[in-house]
């Protein structure tokens, strides 16, 4: 009652009139002050971030920042002789003032600075819409430009090998855009609830950055991606984008031909050509030491040991894919496998399911290449026990079996096994990267610029 009386007294003494305002679709109260329309800080806070800092008001919204000095002389504040800062420009216009100790801001100055439409009693903000996506190709990076009717908040994150940019409250047509770029050949726009999500695959070894450019009458979200952009993601995520494949061919003497190395080389060549990072633990004349090999095994995302079965007196033959069972040789692996997996924990230590999936894929690919492979389990193999992710032993055949020896002497057989190995590993790692998208979503850890 007292405040109403005070307001009335203030209004009577200061040429103030109470009016109704349509503020971005909602009816609120405003005041007319010496012929200019003002809205209180409380009312505007529904739409904008308004902060008072001494004798200055800072208004942030729709990608714009406005600085308005507070002039306690109400009449002078409503004149156009005040200097206000709209983003980076200092212009003359009406400024903020105090009415009965409450902060009021001029709607025409706000509309000018925020790119909104204003007429007496009506303050309209353009609805955020995606007007188009354009691209530009570069030497070492490609650029995607999203034209928006006004600025919106966005969040970018790398999920597996896919960059996802979620633009809050944006409307637009869901469609796929293709570019002529070598690094970002396509991007997809999808609606997700009230938001719009733009996603594109990030090539291995590439980085990306997202930033906004706010202009009068609209805003742009610019995305640069490619090897020319430095990677700023945590090293752990490299396990998804740049997984390490380690092939460990055992040295088997007395067969004439180094078949394990032959198959490993064929698979490594195919995988390297496809952009995967592959390391083979030995060459024909040299081999890594045990410690060096184990260091590599511990860093691996896929570890494949290649061996030939040897045992006196057996007539056993055929290809066998072994999965390791039992405890791992590393404490962290056992601890993480036994406990609750933290977010991104699967990137540190994969469960036994990874080896099982890879084994199934490998046997499937071998079958496709005309090689029937059995599935078996093995325990206490040093290298397989040290591998934190998917690890298998592939027995290419048995040296004591005449049919196996004959098979391993043919180019077609070795090529079929090399191709099956490469294809199964590539399929497994691609699927793992896609699964990591859900993993990232669960963890919900945005990276890079978010505002």
């Amino acid at each position, binding site marked *: 009652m007292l405040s109403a009386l005070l307001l009335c007294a203030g209004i009577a003494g200061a040429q103030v009139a109470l009016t109704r305002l349509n503020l971005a679709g909602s009816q609120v109260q405003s005041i007319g002050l010496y012929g200019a329309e003002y809205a209180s800080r409380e009312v505007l806070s529904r739409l904008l971030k308004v902060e008072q800092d001494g004798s200055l008001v800072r208004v942030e919204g729709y990608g714009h920042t406005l600085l308005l000095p507070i002039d306690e002389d109400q009449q002078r504040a409503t004149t156009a002789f005040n200097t206000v800062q709209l983003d980076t420009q200092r212009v003359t216009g009406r400024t903020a003032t105090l009415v009965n100790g409450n902060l009021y801001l001029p709607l025409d100055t706000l509309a000018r600075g925020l790119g909104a439409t204003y007429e007496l009693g009506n303050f309209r903000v353009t609805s955020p819409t995606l007007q188009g996506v354009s691209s530009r190709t570069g030497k070492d990076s490609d650029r995607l430009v999203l034209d928006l009717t006004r600025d919106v908040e966005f969040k970018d994150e790398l999920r597996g090998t896919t960059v996802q940019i979620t633009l809050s409250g944006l409307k637009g047509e869901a469609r796929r855009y293709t570019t002529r770029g070598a690094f970002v050949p396509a991007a997809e726009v999808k609606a997700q609830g009230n938001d719009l999500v733009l996603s594109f695959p990030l090539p291995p070894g590439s980085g990306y950055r997202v930033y906004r450019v706010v202009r009068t009458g609209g805003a742009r979200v610019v995305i640069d991606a490619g090897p020319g952009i430095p990677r700023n993601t945590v090293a752990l995520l490299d396990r998804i984008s740049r997984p390490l494949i380690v092939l460990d061919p*055992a040295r088997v003497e007395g067969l004439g031909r180094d078949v394990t190395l032959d198959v490993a080389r064929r698979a490594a060549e195919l995988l390297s050509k496809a952009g995967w990072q592959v390391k083979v633990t030995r060459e024909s004349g040299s081999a890594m030491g045990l410690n060096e090999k184990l260091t590599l095994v511990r860093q691996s995302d896929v570890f494949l040991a290649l*061996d030939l*079965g040897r045992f006196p007196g*057996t007539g*056993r033959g055929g290809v066998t894919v*072994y999965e390791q069972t039992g405890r791992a040789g590393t404490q962290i692996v056992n601890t993480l496998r036994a406990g609750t997996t933290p977010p991104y924990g699967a990137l540190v230590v994969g469960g036994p399911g990874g080896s099982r999936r890879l084994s199934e894929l490998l046997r499937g690919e071998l079958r496709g290449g005309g090689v029937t492979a059995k599935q*078996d389990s093995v325990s206490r*193999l040093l290298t397989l*026990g040290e591998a934190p992710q998917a690890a298998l032993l592939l027995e290419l055949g048995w*040296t004591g079996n005449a049919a196996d020896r004959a098979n391993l002497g043919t180019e077609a057989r070795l090529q079929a096994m090399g191709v099956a190995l490469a294809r199964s590993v590539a399929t497994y790692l691609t699927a793992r990267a896609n699964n990591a998208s859900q993993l990232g979503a669960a963890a919900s850890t945005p990276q890079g610029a978010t505002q």
Partner: protein
Amino acid sequence: MSVIKRLFSLFNVVTLLLLVAAYMAYQMVQKPPAKPDAPKLQLAQRRDVKVKVYYSDAQVQNLKAETRTVQVTQENPGALAQAALNVWATGPSASGNLAVVPKGTAAPKVYIRGAHYFVDLPSTYQSLKYGSSGERVLLCSLTRTLLETRGEDVTFLLNGQDVDTLGHLDLREAFTRQDCADQ
């Protein structure tokens, strides 16, 4: 009369007795000791004991148990374990099972400390060059043979030394029954 009396005085008699005693004592100590009789050789009783010994199946996939009779003089765990490994090294008797080491290969030595077995593999085992699956069968057949009746685990040494691996297999920790469970 007085001469005789003087001759057999108390002093002379005692002295004479002492001389006789000394002579007899001298004779006694100079006498060579009697030869002891050689102990009679008694052959220890060797008893037949049945033990379970594991070999490889024909496919080098699973372990096959054979019940074999070994002869031991003492029925303690150490003697039984060593006897079992000795018969393990000689190979299987049942057809269809495969010997894990070539004929004539020395059997490993086994020692027991509480519930833990320590098996010292001769250096020739390093040059057997089996594949990964074969090496597992080699070590698991020994492990299963030893842990059949008692014990917790088996630690493998190579030529008396601690080693990390035998071929592709991890020897850094002791082998347990779980490590060698049927596939």
